[in-house]
């Protein structure tokens, strides 16, 4: 009985390692293809965006959360439900701006960077930039234009990983011309 349970957690750990290793191989390949770090960052963001626009559907189908009424609720859902579901971690939400349109997600440990070290010649590479793209893409599909960027990164020596999220505006559905 206990052996079965062991296998269960072991295979879960392995599939998250599979994801981490695949992501690492992807970043390595991108660094080889593009000469400078800025291009790699942009590419990771674009890929993350494409993933995000599809991931949001899977998320909404599985999590049964209702419509969020304001940005604070959105932040809670992102941290407590979405991150938990897909990455198995629960970041904390801090540093709300006075207007309530900016906040920080603090990740104690980032599963994407297990076993990873940044070499010296890639100091401006934002390794986990895919996450920013995913957040941006997913929220755009639920009518919110946001900006996400890394403020602190454990790979660069900071204590925690911090993503700053800024609400830009609500996206109104534009009806095509001639359809009223």
């Amino acid at each position, binding site marked *: 009985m206990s052996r079965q349970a062991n296998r269960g957690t072991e295979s879960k750990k*392995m599939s998250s390692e*599979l994801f981490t290793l*695949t*992501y*690492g191989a992807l970043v390595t390949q991108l660094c080889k293809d593009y000469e400078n770090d800025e291009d790699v960052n942009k590419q990771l963001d674009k890929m993350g965006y494409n993933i995000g626009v599809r991931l949001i559907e899977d998320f909404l189908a599985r999590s049964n959360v209702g419509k969020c009424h304001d940005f604070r609720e959105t932040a809670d859902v992102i941290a407590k439900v979405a991150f938990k579901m897909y*990455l198995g971690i629960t970041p904390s939400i801090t540093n709300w701006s006075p207007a309530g349109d900016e906040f920080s997600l603090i990740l104690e440990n980032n599963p994407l960077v297990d076993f990873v070290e940044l070499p010296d010649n890639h100091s401006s590479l934002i390794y986990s930039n895919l996450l920013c793209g995913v957040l941006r893409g997913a929220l755009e599909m639920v009518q919110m234009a946001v900006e996400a960027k890394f403020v602190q990164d454990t790979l660069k020596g900071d204590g925690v990983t911090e993503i700053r999220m800024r609400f830009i505006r609500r996206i109104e559905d534009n009806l095509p011309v001639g359809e009223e």
Partner: protein
Amino acid sequence: MADEALFLLLHNELVSGVYKSAEQGEVENGRCITKLENMGFRVGQGLIERFTKDTARFKDELDIMKFICKDFWTTVFKKQIDNLRTNHQGIYVLQDNKFRLLTQMSAGKQYLEHASKVNFR
């Protein structure tokens, strides 16, 4: 924990990313498949290192293949290999009837030549 959907989406992006970057340079299908294979090689190497830390040494080739078909495939693709055939002279054919990386794709004939791209392991 590193959910299935997330991995499948990442894999899709990976494949299309490699092909997009190839469009700007050489347009050879073979080169891209090699790139994907190399990525898969690195990932596979890392995984096996972690996975077989505590298992006993393998006795022979058949033992290795059985390990791949059962334990390894279950971990990576959540099921076992459906059929393993060999000619006992070094050739092994692994058959998976429901390959997880392809189940989400539509079954038309339209993009058949691109199907091989997905199998970068």
